[in-house]
């Protein structure tokens, strides 16, 4: 076997500098770097990487086009199956998907598929985005509820098929978790805006400030639209329900990140939304949202930020890259630790977090070892800002107002099959976190794609669902 070149590293802002700003951390590949990395791909006849991709991007084909310098061709190839490559190239967990299957990865480092995807998507944004061909109008109308990754995918696919699509968003800006949740330093908002502008050029209408379930129900929409897609995400934050959790200075990650990302509280008082700028910060949880919160707190002037997680490093659900970036920036980790109470001052501000030490026991339902508290190991640490990032659950508003829409025990919408993403209610499809519980951007897009395909087939009378 020929000598394998090392993976081309991506240049990024040095940690000391970047914790003073919200700009994106990695700079992306140059043309030369991208072509050098693309040359590492073995062009397998039976590519395993594609199997690892939830939307089955033809990975070897687009990498070959990069190697040949045909960047326009490369982006066209990706967009055959992936609508949002600039976003996926940045936030997909490639290390557990495509790159985990890369044959090179068995002995060496896998091809940097995500970075190459990002490279061509960014190239396209600089050199002009091609509008996809839309089929002639079908005269049928589609309502999409929620403008996150699932909803944007359905909107795009259905618009291309000639449907008149309207996207309803409860917030004042499009993108869902891409805009309120993921910080600028990981996903610049200009990218999300560019994607939405592309959809608008295709004729997709966006209606903001329009909370479905309140201002109109799904049944109301069904009187005006031929089919409805629900992609509202799992947006309700969970708390631990421990004493003192409602003290001031304790946020859900959703609130903290929404204040910073969507409301631009980092610019206060230039913007009007304030945010607590803690000095001693604790972030509870071990996922990507916890990393985003911790790194945001550093950028907002924290002296110390500690991620508190009840299992060990090995069980952390966060991407390795996010943990690595957080560590480089000075975020500390306290493993096998769980808060049991918060203690405040007379004015109601959090001052101390009481924790208990944990040990790992037998695997639980999730397959991960169950964390067990060690009696009597309680200790206190001083804090003035706590961000609870232990996950989210379904927001019940739509389910409560939609008769005939069945949900499971945890409040997530039931689908008749993964292939169609059709719900128990005629004409209504659903996908993304509101079906699966909190998952990834790409899996939401995959669900959106399948829903759109089934919706089209059903509307054409080619598929019988209900």
């Amino acid at each position, binding site marked *: 076997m020929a000598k394998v070149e090392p993976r081309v590293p991506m240049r990024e802002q040095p940690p000391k500098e970047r914790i003073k700003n919200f700009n994106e951390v990695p700079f992306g590949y140059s043309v030369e770097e991208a072509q050098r990395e693309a040359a590492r791909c073995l062009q397998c006849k039976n590519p395993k990487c594609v199997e690892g991709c939830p939307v089955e991007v033809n990975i070897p084909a687009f990498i070959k086009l990069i190697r040949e310098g045909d960047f326009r061709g490369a982006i066209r190839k990706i967009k055959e199956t992936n609508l949002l490559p600039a976003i996926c190239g940045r936030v997909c967990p490639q290390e557990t998907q495509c790159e985990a299957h890369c044959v090179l990865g068995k002995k060496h480092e896998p091809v940097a598929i995500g970075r190459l995807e990002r490279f061509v998507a960014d190239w396209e944004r600089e050199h002009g985005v091609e509008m996809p061909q839309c089929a002639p109008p079908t005269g049928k109308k589609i309502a999409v509820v929620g403008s996150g990754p699932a909803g944007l995918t359905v909107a795009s696919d259905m618009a291309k098929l000639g449907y008149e699509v309207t996207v309803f968003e*409860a*917030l*004042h800006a499009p993108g869902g978790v891409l805009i*309120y949740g993921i910080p600028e330093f990981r996903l610049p908002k200009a990218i999300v805006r560019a994607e939405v502008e592309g959809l608008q050029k295709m004729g997709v209408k966006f209606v*903001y*400030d*329009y*909370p479905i379930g*309140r*201002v*109109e129900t799904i049944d109301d929409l069904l009187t005006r639209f031929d089919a409805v897609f629900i992609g509202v995400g799992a*947006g*309700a*934050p969970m*708390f631990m*329900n421990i004493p003192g*959790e*409602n003290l*001031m200075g304790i*946020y*859900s990650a*959703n*609130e903290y990140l*929404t*204040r910073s990302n969507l*409301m*631009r509280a980092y*610019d*206060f*008082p*230039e*913007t*009007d*939304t*304030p945010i*607590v700028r803690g000095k001693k910060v604790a972030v509870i949880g071990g996922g990507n949202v916890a990393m985003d919160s911790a790194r945001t707190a550093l950028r907002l002037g924290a002296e110390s930020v500690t991620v508190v997680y009840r299992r060990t490093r090995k069980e952390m659900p966060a991407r390795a890259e996010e943990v690595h970036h957080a560590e480089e920036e000075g975020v500390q980790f306290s493993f096998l630790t769980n808060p049991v109470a918060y203690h405040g001052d007379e*004015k*109601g501000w959090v001052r101390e977090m009481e924790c208990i030490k944990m040990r790992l026991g037998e695997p639980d339902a999730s397959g991960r070892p169950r964390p067990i508290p060690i009696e009597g190991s309680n200790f206190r640490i001083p804090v003035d800002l706590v961000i609870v990032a232990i996950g989210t659950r379904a*927001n*019940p*508003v739509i389910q409560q107002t939609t008769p005939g829409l069945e949900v499971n025990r945890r409040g997530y919408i039931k689908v008749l099959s993964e292939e169609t993403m059709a719900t128990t209610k005629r004409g209504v499809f659903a996908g993304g976190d509101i079906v699966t519980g909190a998952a990834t951007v790409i899996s939401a897009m995959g669900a959106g794609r399948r829903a759109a395909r089934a919706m089209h087939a059903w509307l054409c009378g080619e598929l019988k669902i209900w």
Partner: protein
Amino acid sequence: MEMFEIVKKRPITEEVFMMELFAPHIAKKRKAGQFIIIRVDEVGERIPLTIADADPEAGTIRIYFQVVGTTTYKLSRLEVGQRLADVVGPLGRPTHIENFGRVVCVGGGVGVAPLYPITKAMKEAGNHTIGIIGARTKALLILEDEMRAICDELLISTDDGSYGHKGFVTDLLRQVLERPEKVNQVVAIGPPIMMKFVCKLTKEFNVPTIVSLNPIMVDGTGMCGACRVEVGGETKFCCVDGPEFDGHAVNWELFMQRLTAYREQEQLSYKLIREKTGGK
């Protein structure tokens, strides 16, 4: 007409304003007790305001607000024909309306605005409806005529005695509760301290009491938890579980503390905006 355009604006006092906004989808759907979230401009904060009334035919909703900080100050400087960046609603659960028998509706300050549609709905449901409204001083009293038109009896108090009873709404409420006719339900909306004392009083008389809470909110749709309140020892999200709760079960101390979370920043922001715009 443009969405979220100001169709009518009327100063009640120097600090208190009435506005009607063009938002036909909200005007059509809203029920008594529900609220909206507004954002005045592109750098604006999201704040909740209760809907005081609506005209589904004209497509307008009515709000009352008192200038207390940056957002309400900016709002007060907008004129008819200008528009707000965002108006979201109707949010929250509507008031539970039924024929309870004898209902007392107690409102203080701008709290009378959200109280008005509830009082109206209670009256329409067949209740004998007594209104008690109060303000710091006569000039700050709002919706007196409107309330009088729908109440079987209307009592008024001002802190300084410039109009009606000199004292608090709770003084008048005590008088009503001490009458031989049994009161079946109280609804109280106003400053937190007023609602707290109304609840203390109605607890003595064992009369169920609904309050409408107005905590700090961000999205208003159950996504962030900024508005969490403790009711009966449980944490609730005011935006989706409320805004109305059993006043006897509310943890008032916590509720009032959480309202102070951004006091310093609010004062700074308010000072800067006034300097920038040459306002008072």
